[in-house]
């Protein structure tokens, strides 16, 4: 339900921002060549990411995050309604031996941080005495109303109405700021109004993640600093990837150049390719334990097949007339390898390397989730065990940012090293 509401807000901002930015802000500014094209719908080259849309998109995510977590960064009026805090009151009607009597229940709903005891209340008259209870925000609680009554449930007393409204086990009566449901055994279960906001336990507000970031930065997490955790993950990725490339690229070349190698390794490569590296984690742990060796071997295996296939298709992608031309110009086999096949396969290899780095990064996090003493994945795994959702979110953000950074770095290196990509 809340989900639909969030989606509606998101769509609303999407559409509103579209109209505001395209019809008002950009009207005056677009003046380059593309703006002179009359056919843009269907012309992919005319589609470029709108920078405004990108900025607003990210702000919207934070806005919605803040709205539904009651973030202090946002003015109060933007907050989604929060879960009820305060005091609830309702009356229950007990029936025993054909007699009825009312009692009042006072429920204190306290914020999670400040544990509060149930208040003292006057017992009142009749056989049904007044009760009190304390429930944390977002929680529900059974109130054993008959406990202090003169005639208890054991003696045959039954709750038959809440606030004067008749109720049967399993039914619910709405009260002010909450609802009361009669359990199957006849005990009222109080559910204070939960509001639209997420519980910090499930989703902490942005500022809490930020302050947690600062503490983790200064104090570290589990006897390693934040940078050590990330550094370990990165080191594993780079080591595994480099080993994979070191073996995979020559293997791919050999497969692209020799019948024997192709025949020998094709079944292995084609078999290993569809096996997700994650499926190898248990075996790698059994064989090599949870230390660095196992992780690097896992990442090596993740990168190996991708790099081998990339190098192989790099070789088969060589335009045969280039090879013919080189032979006619007097090149030897080795020279053809060095001056034609290798440079010609570099674009493919870079594409493969980008994929491999992505896969390795994902795999290392997953492997650390399973077993590790340090690393980004281990951080979020341990944090989730201790319900430190803020650290989990911090970890996810960092993993995403680093993965994105790796890809940007690879693209930059690609532009620098293989400027001829796609120009053949």
């Amino acid at each position, binding site marked *: 339900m809340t989900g639909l509401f969030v989606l509606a807000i998101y769509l609303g901002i999407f559409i509103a921002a579209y109209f505001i930015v395209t019809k008002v802000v950009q009207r005056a500014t677009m003046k380059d060549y593309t703006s002179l094209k009359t056919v843009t719908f269907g012309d992919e080259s005319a589609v470029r990411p709108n920078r405004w849309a990108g900025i607003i998109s990210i702000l919207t995510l934070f806005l919605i995050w803040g709205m539904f977590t009651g973030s202090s960064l946002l003015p109060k009026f933007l907050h989604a309604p929060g879960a009820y805090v305060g005091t609830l009151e309702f009356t229950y009607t007990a029936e025993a031996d054909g007699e009825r009597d009312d009692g009042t229940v006072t429920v204190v709903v306290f914020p999670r941080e400040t544990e509060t005891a149930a208040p003292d209340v006057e017992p009142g008259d009749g056989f049904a005495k007044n009760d009190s209870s304390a429930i944390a925000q977002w929680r529900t609680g059974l109130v054993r109303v008959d406990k202090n009554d003169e005639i208890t449930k054991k003696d045959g007393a039954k709750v038959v109405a809440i606030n004067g409204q008749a109720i049967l086990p399993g039914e619910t009566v709405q009260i002010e700021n909450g609802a009361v449901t009669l359990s199957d055994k006849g005990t009222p279960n109080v559910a204070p109004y939960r509001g639209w906001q997420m519980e910090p336990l499930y989703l902490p507000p942005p500022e809490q993640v930020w302050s947690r970031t600062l503490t983790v930065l200064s104090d570290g997490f589990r006897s390693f600093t934040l940078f050590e955790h990330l550094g370990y993950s990165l080191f594993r990725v780079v080591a595994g990837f480099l080993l994979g490339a070191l073996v995979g690229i020559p293997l791919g070349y050999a497969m692209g150049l020799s019948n024997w190698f192709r025949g020998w390794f094709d079944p292995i490569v084609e078999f290993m390719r569809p096996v997700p590296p994650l499926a190898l984690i248990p075996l790698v742990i059994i064989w090599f334990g949870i230390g660095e060796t196992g992780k690097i071997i896992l990442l090596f295996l993740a990168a190996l097949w991708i790099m081998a296939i990339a190098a192989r298709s790099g070789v088969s992608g060589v*335009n045969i*007339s*280039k090879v*013919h*031309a*080189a*032979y*006619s*110009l*007097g*090149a*030897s086999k080795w*020279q053809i390898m060095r*001056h*034609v096949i290798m*440079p*010609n396969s*570099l674009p493919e290899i870079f594409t493969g390397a980008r994929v491999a780095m992505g896969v390795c990064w994902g795999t290392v996090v997953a492997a650390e989730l399973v077993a590790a003493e340090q690393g980004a994945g281990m951080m979020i795994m341990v944090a989730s065990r201790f319900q430190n959702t803020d650290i989990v979110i911090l970890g996810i953000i960092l993993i995403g940012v680093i993965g994105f950074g790796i890809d940007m770095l690879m693209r930059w290196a690609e532009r620098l090293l*293989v*400027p*001829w990509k796609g*120009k*053949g």
Partner: protein
Amino acid sequence: MSGLSLQDISMRFDLPNGGSVQALENVSLDLKPGELMSVLGPSGCGKTTLLNILAGFLAQTSGRLELNDHEITGPDAERGMVFQKGALFEWMSVRDNVGFGPSMKGMPKNDKTEIVNHLLDVVGLQEFKEKAVYELSGGMQQRVALARCLANDPDVILMDEPLGALDALTREKMQSLVLKLWKETGKTIILITHSVEEALLLGERLIVMAPRPGRIHKEYRLPFAELGVGADLREVKKHPDFAVKRDEILNMIWDMEEEIMGRTEEAS
């Protein structure tokens, strides 16, 4: 005997489905050093196959092939190749492309630079030598390909539709360039083309091939190449004989194409 000699060259491709294609049958030919020969023929008559055999990329199924009294068994720097397109090394600059052959031979740097600079002057690309080849136009790229081939100083130059991908004007300029280079360097050149006019202009000798099986159908000796050296090719085309020869050959190829069509229609 020096020069290129083909004796009864035949080529049969065995197809995976058990059948076979007789791409060439008993092609015999002698070319003296410095001769310029163009090859015409309907599509699929085995022109490319013949050139690939001469270059040494394919081994003929029978027949004998000699250049300057030794047998041709594989690709070699003595036989240079110019392709229609896509054979330049786009990871190298124009200069490195042209200097590729000398580099492979391990020629001293100074000698190489001299050759490369000279050839870049000849093809008029001196200013572009630092550029990447993909930054050049199609015509410029073919000039690089020519220069790269010449840098290696081959005895024979084989060209498979070298100007086929160019527009008409660039093509005309390139035809003049080919003639000029032929005259200046005295190379033996075999040039495959689909354009009858180009074949007439760029062939002291012209052979017309016929398909199924691929064979030499007719051979001409023509004056136009000689006339065209250093002259305006459009003037050469006004030569009274030019139109006569052009129509004769066009009709010949037209008839062959008709026959092929007829045969495929019968078969289907």
